[in-house]
């Protein structure tokens, strides 16, 4: 499919030293691409550059092949949904939605029809005469989305649109947006710091850190094969252990695994909790002691103490009875990822949920 939005070598540095450097992203027509990263990683800068609210220092941004760098936001074929304060409180929902259409001098019958269509799309028909303050936070965001859709943008930009809402609503809206996006064949650039949100709705995820792109791939690829230690730490849950790589072998305590990446020296090994399993043979695997068993719905989480550190392990909820506190077991790993260098300690809010 054709490239709808192309961001090439975009650089924007702030006097504080923060900013983004050499960002390259291509978004295809009908694709939903998510910019994911901790706060201050520059994801919003990239989004706002695409929307025209920030002038990049260098680089080129094209939409369907045409450069938009010198075009002000009101003339760009983009529409943006902000985190909050999207709507104008002194106007009714209808006036909010019709604002852009009236600016285009559209006839009343025509814009009424369009407003009706947009409201139906976000399932809020009948709220025309209400003021934004009479709607809930989730409804307001849906109106904001409807207003953005009425602009018939070539690229829809969303800046953490659900982060001010509570968890359940966030889940619902996420699904709704994905549905509308797929049905209307919308091209979307979506910014979030919530990795779960990114994994669930994206066609592709761009993981950013400190103004640079760490990895750009499908959610599945990013989860299964994180390109860097940062991505491994940021996406999903992962245990980190120290290992030793030499030749063809990767040694983690008593375990020896193939050295796929041909690293050497001390490495950090990442293991997803679902890839931690009980070792089969006697005397094999890493000896561990069960210190906690937590039921988490469709699965359970077991906390293990080993001489290599604390390990988390996910088990089937039906097997929960096999694990007693202080029981000694031995575990091994079905799949590991090895990285050069040391694990960096991240701030709690950066790991997010």
């Amino acid at each position, binding site marked *: 499919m054709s490239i709808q939005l192309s961001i090439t070598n975009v650089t924007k540095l702030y006097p504080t030293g923060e900013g983004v450097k050499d960002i390259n992203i291509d978004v295809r027509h009908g694709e939903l691409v998510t910019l994911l990263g901790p706060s201050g990683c520059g994801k919003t800068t990239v989004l706002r550059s695409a929307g025209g609210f920030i002038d990049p220092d260098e680089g080129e941004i094209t939409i369907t092949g045409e450069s938009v760098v010198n075009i002000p936001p009101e003339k760009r074929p983009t529409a943006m949904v902000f985190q909050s304060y999207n709507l104008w409180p002194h106007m009714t929902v209808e006036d909010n939605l019709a604002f852009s259409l009236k*600016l285009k001098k559209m006839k009343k019958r025509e814009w009424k029809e369009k407003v009706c269509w947009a409201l139906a799309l976000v399932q809020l028909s009948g709220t025309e005469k209400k003021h934004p303050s009479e709607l809930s936070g989730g409804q307001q965001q849906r109106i904001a989305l409807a207003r953005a859709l009425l602009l018939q943008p070539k690229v829809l930009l969303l800046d953490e649109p659900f982060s001010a809402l509570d968890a359940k609503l966030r889940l619902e809206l996420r699904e709704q947006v994905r549905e509308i996006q797929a049905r209307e064949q919308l091209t979307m650039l979506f910014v979030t710091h919530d990795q779960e949100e990114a994994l669930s709705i994206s066609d592709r995820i761009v993981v950013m850190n400190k103004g640079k792109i760490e990895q750009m791939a499908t959610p599945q690829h990013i989860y299964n094969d994180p390109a860097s230690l940062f991505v491994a730490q940021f996406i999903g849950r992962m245990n980190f252990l120290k290992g030793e790589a030499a030749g063809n072998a990767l040694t983690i305590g008593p375990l020896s695994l193939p050295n796929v990446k041909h690293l050497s020296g001390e490495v950090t090994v990442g293991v997803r909790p679902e890839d931690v399993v009980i070792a089969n043979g006697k005397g094999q695997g890493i000896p561990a002691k069960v210190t906690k068993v937590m039921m988490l719905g469709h699965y359970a989480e077991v906390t293990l103490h080993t001489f290599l550190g604390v390990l988390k392990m996910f088990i089937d909820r039906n097997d929960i009875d096999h694990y007693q506190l202080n029981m000694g077991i031995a575990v091994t790993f079905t799949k590991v990822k090895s990285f050069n260098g040391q694990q960096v300690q991240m701030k709690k809010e950066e790991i997010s949920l």
Partner: protein
Amino acid sequence: MWYFKALPTSKIIQFICLSVFLIFFFGPLLNLLLLAFSGEWQYPHRLPTSWSLEWWSFVLQDQSITRAMGLSFLIATIVTLLSLIICLPAAYTFARIQFPMRRFFLFSYLLTNAFPKMGLYVAIAVLFYRLGLMNTFVGIVLIHIINTLMFMTWIPSAAFANVHQSQEESARDAGASPFQVFWHITLPMAKPGIIVASVFTFLSSLDEAQGTFLVGIPDYRTMPVIMYSIIVDYPSTAGAVFSVILTAPTIILLLVARKFVGGDALAAGFKMK
């Protein structure tokens, strides 16, 4: 009595406080109103012994007084409009643009209110003599604007600051030029604050006597200036009639704007940001 016994002490104290407040607040106004319509009112009578509209007709028929009223309202209207034109851009700048010494400049608006007014006016009068602005309409308007700058900048500035950046940006996004955004989004959203400030400006101009007296005498006599001579030269009933006329626009304006005039807009205006 059983009703009062059933009430908790705190309620009774509240009631007494409210009554005292009402007497202090409305007592003089009521007295003024009675006085204005009285024909004869001598001690020890509690109420006027006869009612009349004699002084009303005197005040309303006196050419110089009606002219003063017209002048006062004309000046107040012009002062309000001019302050709006001068101060709204300044208010928007203070609200939106971070420039060096911003807080200092914002604070400097307080200076005109920090000194004894008369001293300031005399100093200005010296300047006005040189510029030939004494005894001119322009001079009076300028003196009035000095008083209104602070209200007119601080309160709308807070109102503008309350309009979120993303609300303006989403309007840009929807296809509005910067000016259209200001006209359709920012200005209407800040309207309550601007109305409050305008009401205050209008009233303070209507009420201004010291500066007008110094700069406008002898040709420009506004209502408050005339009031001084009326109080001195005529019986108190004339003064009462006149203060009712002076008070009426205040009350009417506040009633019209009461939807907007709230503690919030005022308090927001006096918060330094």
